[in-house]
Structures are given as structure tokens and as C-alpha cells.
């Protein structure tokens, strides 16, 4: 039991963070607005979760201008993908263990 819990990543305890990572691992790069629409959360909430993931090195931020509008897009880093996969494995094991 302890083994599974050890693999649980504290960073992914929030459902919004799990959501962000889910979207980023299957897409190349996603902009702020699209993430917000998909997850249906407020700007401030989104920004704080994203910066937390960025600090952990799980998410990469790139800023550019589309015409005159600034556009911020996000992508999962290799470390982020690995951490997410490990977390999912732990979840899977936990649930699998209960079912058998």
C-alpha cells in the first residue's frame, strides 16, 4: 500500500492540474484561452496552477505576438510527461488492486 502512495505526485492533487496535464500531453502546444475554455476555470485560478506547474519544470511557457496581440502558449516538458505518467501508473495500480 505504501508503495503506491509514494508514487502519488503532490503536484497533481488538484483536478485542474491533472486537467492541464491531460490536455498538454496529447497536444503540441495549447494557448491560455483554449485551456481556460476546456477546463472552465477563471483566469486567476488558471494562471496560478500553470505557474505552479511551470516552477516544477513540468510545463514550458512560450510567449509570442500574433499580430499585436500577445499570445501565451503552454507545452508539457519531458519531465512533466514523465511525472504525469508515473502518477497515472500509481492511480492505475491503486484501482487495479482494489478490483482484484
Amino acid at each position: 500500500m505504501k508503495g503506491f502512495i509514494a508514487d502519488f505526485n503532490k503536484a497533481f492533487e488538484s483536478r485542474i492540474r491533472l486537467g492541464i496535464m491531460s490536455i498538454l500531453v496529447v497536444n503540441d502546444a495549447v494557448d491560455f484561452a483554449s485551456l481556460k475554455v476546456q477546463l472552465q476555470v477563471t483566469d486567476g485560478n488558471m494562471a496560478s496552477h500553470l505557474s505552479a506547474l511551470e516552477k516544477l519544470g513540468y510545463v514550458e511557457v512560450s510567449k509570442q505576438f500574433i499580430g499585436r496581440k500577445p499570445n501565451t502558449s503552454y507545452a508539457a516538458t519531458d519531465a512533466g510527461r514523465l511525472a504525469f505518467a508515473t502518477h497515472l501508473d500509481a492511480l492505475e495500480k491503486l484501482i487495479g488492486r482494489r478490483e482484484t
Partner: protein
Amino acid sequence: MNMSTEQEHLESIREMRNLMERSTRYLSVSGLAGVIVGFIALGGVACLLTNMDIPIGRPVSFNELAAAGGPQASLINERILTMAAGVFSLSLIVEIGLAYRNARKLRLPLWDATARRMITALGIPILGGGVYCLSLIQAGQPDGLAPASLIFYGLGLVHAGRHAVPDVGRLGLAVFVSGLTASFFPSLGVYFWAFGFGILHIIYGITIHFKHQR
């Protein structure tokens, strides 16, 4: 580990799967639109045949259609082109209109990264096919129209299916195969065209509608 946290984990896994799908696939395609588009295509063919006094059901190739105009062949080609353009633009309007309705129902944006990917995947083969069909008319080989339009459109749908609900890809495969078959039966070109663009769309539309309730 108690029951409620396990429920939470299952719930969050479901949510993640949902997000992964929603963010990579365009889900607002409409079954009803498929059915309507199918009928538009059948109607277009019926109009064309009636317009040229050909009884519906008599085997007729695109070559015959074009030749039926005699010295006025260009006029006939114009009718074929008008029919194709009419069917295409009406279909486009129906598809966009009903996709808009679905997008609102699903609370998804009509135009986003998934829509862009799907349209690019579909649009390039369609544009290419359109240009190629024009060249067939120019070269005086209208028989190629049915197979060429079906093959290009089918391949476009197969490609687009990777960015939309999987049924789109299945429709594409069926259209593609009917295009290939059509290339061996030029005398039935008009009916293959009606089958590929009409009947298959209707079947696909009904499937989508009942499977996804939209």
C-alpha cells in the same frame, strides 16, 4: 484507502480521458447535417438528370452526360459544374450551421485548434481534388469525375477522421472504396457519385445521430 477516495480517482480518470479526447478531436460534427447533405447530393443528381431528360435509373456515365450536349458540350459541362458547385456550397452551409448548433449544445467553441486541424486535413485533399476534376473536364475526360471526386474526398475524410469522431474516418474509407470501384464502371459513374455522396452520407449521418445523439 476508503471507497470515496477511490470514487474520486475513478472520476478524475474519467475527466482526464474526456479532456484528452475533447482537446484533440473535433466533436461537434452533426449527424443530421450528414443526412441533409446526402439528400442534397441525391437531389442534385436528380435535378441534373431531369434537366437533361434522362430517366432516373438508366445507366449513364459522365462522358454521356457531357456528350449529350452535342456541339453545346461546354453548356453541359457548365450544368455539371453548376450542380457540383451547388451541392458543395449548400452542403458546406448545412455542415457549418449544424456544427455551430452542436458546438453550442456541447459548450465547445465552433472554431478552435481541433476544428482547424480537421479542416486542414479535409481541405487540402478537397482543393486538390477540385483542381484535378477541372483538369479532367479541360482534358475532355468527364468519366474521371466520379472516381476522382470520390477518391479525393474519401481520402480527405480518412485523414480528417483522426481529428474528429472516428465515424468520419469510416465514412471516408467507404467513400474511397466506392470511388475506386467507380473507376472500373464508368458507365455507372453518375450513380456511383450519387451513392458515394448521397447514400453513404445518409447512412453515416444516421449512425452518428443515434450513436452520439447529435
